[in-house]
């Protein structure tokens, strides 16, 4: 009989845990509340099924537990019941799938007015590249990566000269403007993930992946890497700051372009080339980033 009690307790406890526990998603900061809504639908449907199945099971165990002289009923199958259950299940599954697919088609269709920005990952830090005045990002290639050109921007491409580079520092974005995030890695798989934005996508060395979102509130958000990328994986944090338009332009004005950074007199001063130095100072790099995000 203990098992009946425990089965009921599991249902009640799980539902109460779901409703009362303090562990829930972070307040959203992007347009992907559609995704949150789809999760809510999923919770309702699956929650009802879970409670129904387990409670029914508890009832069966209670009602039909062995007592002296009992004998089980003989019922090989029941076509009608099985068909009904199948139809109801198919209906429930459709109710989960259809909204999901609608939101997914939105997710993969990038709006025309989205600004392309680029995130470049490497073991174990984030860099960013924004299009310059021409609004276009220059091409890039992992083979072009050198100490002076850590992001591998093609040196000959005229589109790339005015690109704004943000190396191993915070990225700022204007609030309310859709952004198409182009994702690139120069070593292993990484994944650009900000819990508050809900969206994420792997970055694959050798190709460029993407997703899009619109930041809906200002604030400072922590970037996490969500694809195992070696032993520094848990320390691969970054910061994205969502600004008002004004603050954003002010920040943008202070950034340097690819042409400026690759000019000979500048090299070796402000920006340390990534690679061995930063990698060996991994702890330091991560800490400094954290202290910045704390401020």
């Amino acid at each position, binding site marked *: 009989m203990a098992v009946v009690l425990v089965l009921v307790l599991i249902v009640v406890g799980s539902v109460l845990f779901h409703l009362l526990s303090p562990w829930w998603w972070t307040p959203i900061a992007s347009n992907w509340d559609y995704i949150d809504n789809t999760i809510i639908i999923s919770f309702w449907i699956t929650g009802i099924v879970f409670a129904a199945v387990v409670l029914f099971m508890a009832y069966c165990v209670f009602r039909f537990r062995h007592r002296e002289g009992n004998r089980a009923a003989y019922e090989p199958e029941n076509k009608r019941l099985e068909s009904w259950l199948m139809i109801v299940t198919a209906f429930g599954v459709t109710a989960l799938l259809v909204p999901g697919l609608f939101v997914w088609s939105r997710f993969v269709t990038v709006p025309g007015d989205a600004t392309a920005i680029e995130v470049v990952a490497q073991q*174990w830090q984030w860099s960013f590249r924004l299009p310059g005045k021409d609004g276009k990002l220059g091409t890039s290639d992992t083979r072009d990566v050198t100490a002076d050109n850590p992001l591998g921007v093609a040196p000959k491409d005229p589109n790339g000269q005015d690109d704004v580079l943000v190396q191993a520092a915070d990225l700022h974005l204007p609030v309310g403007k859709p952004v198409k995030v182009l994702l690139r890695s120069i070593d292993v798989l990484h994944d650009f993930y900000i819990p508050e934005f809900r969206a994420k996508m792997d970055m694959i060395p050798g190709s460029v992946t993407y997703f899009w979102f619109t930041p809906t509130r200002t604030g400072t958000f922590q970037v996490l890497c969500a694809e195992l990328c070696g032993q520094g994986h848990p320390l691969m944090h970054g910061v994205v700051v969502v600004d008002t338009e004004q603050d954003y332009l002010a920040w943008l004005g202070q950034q340097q372009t690819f042409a400026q950074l690759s000019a000979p007199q500048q090299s070796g001063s402000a920006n340390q080339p990534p690679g061995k130095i930063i990698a060996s100072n991994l702890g330091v790099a991560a800490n400094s980033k954290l202290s910045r995000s704390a401020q």
Partner: protein
Amino acid sequence: MVDVTPADAVPPAEVGEVELYHPHSWWTKYVFSQDAKVIAVQYSATATAIGLVALVLSWLMRLQLGFPGTFDFITPEAYYQFITMHGMIMVIYLLTALFLGGFGNYLIPLMVGARDMVFPYVNMLSYWIYLLAVLVLVSSFFAPGGPTGAGWTLYPPQAIMSGTPGGQDWGIILMLSSLILFIVGFTMGGLNYVVTVLQGRTRGMTLMRLPLTVWGIFTATVMALLAFPALFVACVMMLLDRVLGTSFFMPAIVEMGEQLQHNGGSPILFQHLFWFFGHPEVYIVALPAFGIVSDLISTHARKNIFGYRMMVWAIIAIGALSFVVWAHHMYVSGMNPYFGFFFATTTLIIAVPTAIKVYNWVLTLWRGDIHLTIPMLFALAFIVTFVNGGLTGLFLGNVVVDVPLSDTMFVVAHFHMVMGVAPILVIFGAIYHWYPKVTGRMLDETLGRFHFWVTFVGAYLIFFPMHYLGLMGVPRRYAELTDMTIMTESARHLNSFISIMAFIVGFAQMVFLFNLIWSIRHGREAGGNPWRATTLEWQTPQTPPEHGNFGKELPIVYRWAYDYSVPGAKEDFIPQNVPGDFAPSREPA
């Protein structure tokens, strides 16, 4: 009665009569044995031993996650080595080997009424190659640089680069070699399981009279035979990338400021191959569990399994569908996003036959005569955890919901619930159920109940709350969950709680092991058919069955495996090999 089999077509299982009864030396009887039952015990013992290693590894990682910074010896490198070996051992070397190599070897010949597997020599080789694979795997703990820390998915480029533990040392090489060996060994065993079901069945054992255990193991083996080659291909190609510098999976890479020699390869290609194996693998573990749990429920509820035909069709449907859902593991991998529509649809379709199986288990309980024996308790616990884990699978299969949840603790909680806890609960139930047949003695009841309650409630308390960490956005595979803005103080406490539960559940397994060993000598005598079950393995003349299983004459099967509580019959079960009809009218009114 026409004998259609030509002279040379007599299956070796029957030819072996002379061979079976010649005197055996100790070595050929217990070590290099060709008896499927001995091989089954060897498989099970080896899998359990290596599974214990994986259990200890899980403790170590929970130490780190629950109490960060307290245990200095768990460096990030070590942590990644722990999770990798834990995952790989549990999925391949424990679950696959135990279900197919252990239960498959023991139950298939007995349940279909064969004297042995059809190719006993190949069967023996299969075990020894498996053992070799395990030894190679274990040797990586002692190799320079330690085992690989690439995660059980072994994604390149990271898996074979120096930023990953074992990536440029021996770890990854030994891991890949061990997998290749495992697959070779498994293929040998798998051929046996499939062909024995096809050809070794005794007279009257039509496919629709097979117990669902055999259906589950049979279908899973067919799937494994077709899916493991994908892992084999992936392993061989990665091994070449790592050792000989080819570029199957390795694109142009700058590692720590240095350009590597590789060029142009595709990491996504590896992921396709890996998951082409990896998803069927989930069902390779699940289907035997489905089959076994059906038999446990039916036997201990004294009622035929509800909707047997639907159960068989569902097993076949799940097996077939599971080959066209693999890319749901890759929604955020950067593959063509339009694949998402297709794979989300196939993935959710597979939920329908799976749900039917759940309904039929529960409906078998309805109007049953439920004996709350330990196997039955484990079966009930399986249903709870499987339903829970299966339903969260609907979240992750639904492509857009997967976007925020993938690579978080939600995924970890989901797959532990559905293919960790649930199948292991079935394994426990099955061991309590068949231990009397293997040893002739019952497992101790009190220890068993203690083991059940701690394992079931503990495992639920570990993995149910873990979903909510994932919902918060806590990523998986983080050696340190410090310095994260989303990690609240209460979430840290939750993590410590999960760790403590993990130690308690792990401890209960020690009790179980003690019970296993102690009961061999001191358990209650079981008799031939302690559960009063219908299937053939309980009808053997000796318990434990001898080499050859059925004595002089093979049983002849007259009925399906689920004649429990037939109206009009005197007993509440009729074994499959009992002739005669006890119930004139069997169609329910």
